């Protein structure tokens, strides 16, 4: 699996999408940095980290992750490389698993980039109240939210296999981001798989009447359904030439 992941990284060499995703990971901290001056959006590291984590995992990550997943899978069809990979031979199950792992690794990289850039922007803005514990807690919160979010993206894997073009993923990601904005704060937010990762990670779920176990269950079921349909579809369908 290590070789697979290394090769997935090599595939991203000189890739515009990878660079754009890194820029995307820096965007929420940059916007919050601007907001500190423009809208007086708090003057502490605590506030900056809280805002960055919320905007990243509850909104921006949805869009970003849908583009990433569509690129990871879709490019193998669009660049006609899937037939090359499968005839190496690589089993379809192993291929799918390596893509899932690569998606997770990519998310981890973006999480580190977001957290570190928030830290840098915080120092540039001269914010107060920095402690290493605060930073590590914030990083752990974002990491946890993004990992939970990763699990909810398995249905997008199926969509990327079914519609290999990146446009539907981008439209779907943008649509889901809007849905998240509308649902966030509503009583039934803990039931929506793409909202509850942030609610769980930030602890906001305690403010809702729903038990966190239900939200965990919803995330797990979403993951398993997405995983099952993507696996069945990918292993049972002919490769489009």
């Amino acid at each position, binding site marked *: 699996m290590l070789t697979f992941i290394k090769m997935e990284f090599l595939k991203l060499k000189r890739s515009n999408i990878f660079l754009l995703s890194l820029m995307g990971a820096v965007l929420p901290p940059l916007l919050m940095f601007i907001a500190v001056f423009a809208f007086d959006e708090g003057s502490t590291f605590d506030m900056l980290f809280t805002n960055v984590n919320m905007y990243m995992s509850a909104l921006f990550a949805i869009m970003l992750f849908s583009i990433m997943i569509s690129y990871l899978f879709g490019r193998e069809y669009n660049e006609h*490389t899937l037939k090359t990979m499968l005839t*190496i031979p690589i089993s379809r199950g192993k291929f799918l698993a390596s893509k899932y792992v690569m998606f997770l690794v990519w998310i981890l990289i973006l999480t580190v980039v977001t957290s570190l850039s928030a830290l840098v922007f915080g120092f540039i803005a001269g914010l107060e109240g920095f402690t290493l514990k605060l930073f590590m807690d914030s990083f752990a919160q974002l990491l946890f939210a993004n990992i939970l979010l990763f699990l909810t993206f398995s249905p997008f894997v199926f969509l990327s296999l079914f519609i290999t073009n990146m446009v539907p993923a981008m439209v779907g990601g943008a649509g889901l981001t809007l849905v998240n904005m509308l649902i966030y704060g509503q009583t039934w937010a803990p039931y929506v798989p793409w909202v509850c990762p942030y609610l769980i990670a930030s602890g906001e779920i305690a403010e809702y009447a729903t038990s966190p176990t239900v939200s965990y269950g919803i995330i797990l079921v979403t993951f398993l359904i997405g995983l099952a349909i993507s696996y069945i579809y990918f292993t049972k369908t002919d490769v489009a030439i």
Partner: protein
Amino acid sequence: MADYVIETKDLSKIYSKTKVVDSINMHVEKGKIYGLLGKNGAGKTTTMCMLLNLTYPSSGEVFLFGKDPKKYSKEIYPKIGSIIETPGFYENLTAYENLKIIAKLRGEYNPVNINSVLKMVNLDQEKSKKFKDFSLGMKQRLGIAAAIMHSPELLILDEPINGLDPFGIKEIRTLLKRLSHEFGITILISSHILSEIENIADVIGVMDEGILIEEFTRDELFRKLNKHVEFEVSDVDLAVNILKKLDLRDNSDFTFNIDGKICLYSHLEMRDKFNALFVKAGVDVKKVNLCEENLEEFFTRFVSNN
């Protein structure tokens, strides 16, 4: 019994009620170059995809190296190199990097081997160029490099000369012949270009509308080509009378026109005797040509008859 590297039994593929491959029984012998000939849409690519497990058969069986590839996929597929239609590589990577990915995933990464295979397909000067900047011919050559890099025992090549210039075609043809004759690699190559198949293949399979009409060797193919003898004479009526007296029938054994041309379709081995008879009867014979049907004419006739 022949040692078949590829054997199919009633292999079929149906796409939404249309049979694109219809019960084909293909036999590819070890060490031979098998040319799969057919028009676009004849079912060649689908057949090759089924052999490579990229497309699942609707019915029938495939045997590769005498074994069921479903059961022995890990043993069988590493012994195969392939190109299906346009070679697929990562556009943002160089030729070398693309081959490195394939070699690493095969567990056989060796920089010397990659450089030598790039040299073999004349891409050694372009190894640092990104794939997206490659011409169609270069892409095709890189596809061949990827297919032969791991010294396969079987090559499955779908239209590998597409996009190559005449020099490129010649190079690839020479390379494939060398791989087959020197290294004993079995090659299944498809093309809709008759002359290409004629030039390279030891055995030819003709496909049309999903059906493998027939398989024949090169020698059998040349025996199947229609031949006729063309006489150009000074007195066509007299010459025709001579042929009729020998019980040869007009429009069946021969045809003629008023310009003095007689085409003889049967008794070709007796053309010297006919010539002598014409001359003896006072007919000047200006030309005697043995004409052979070309491959294009044969293919058209063969497909329409079947």
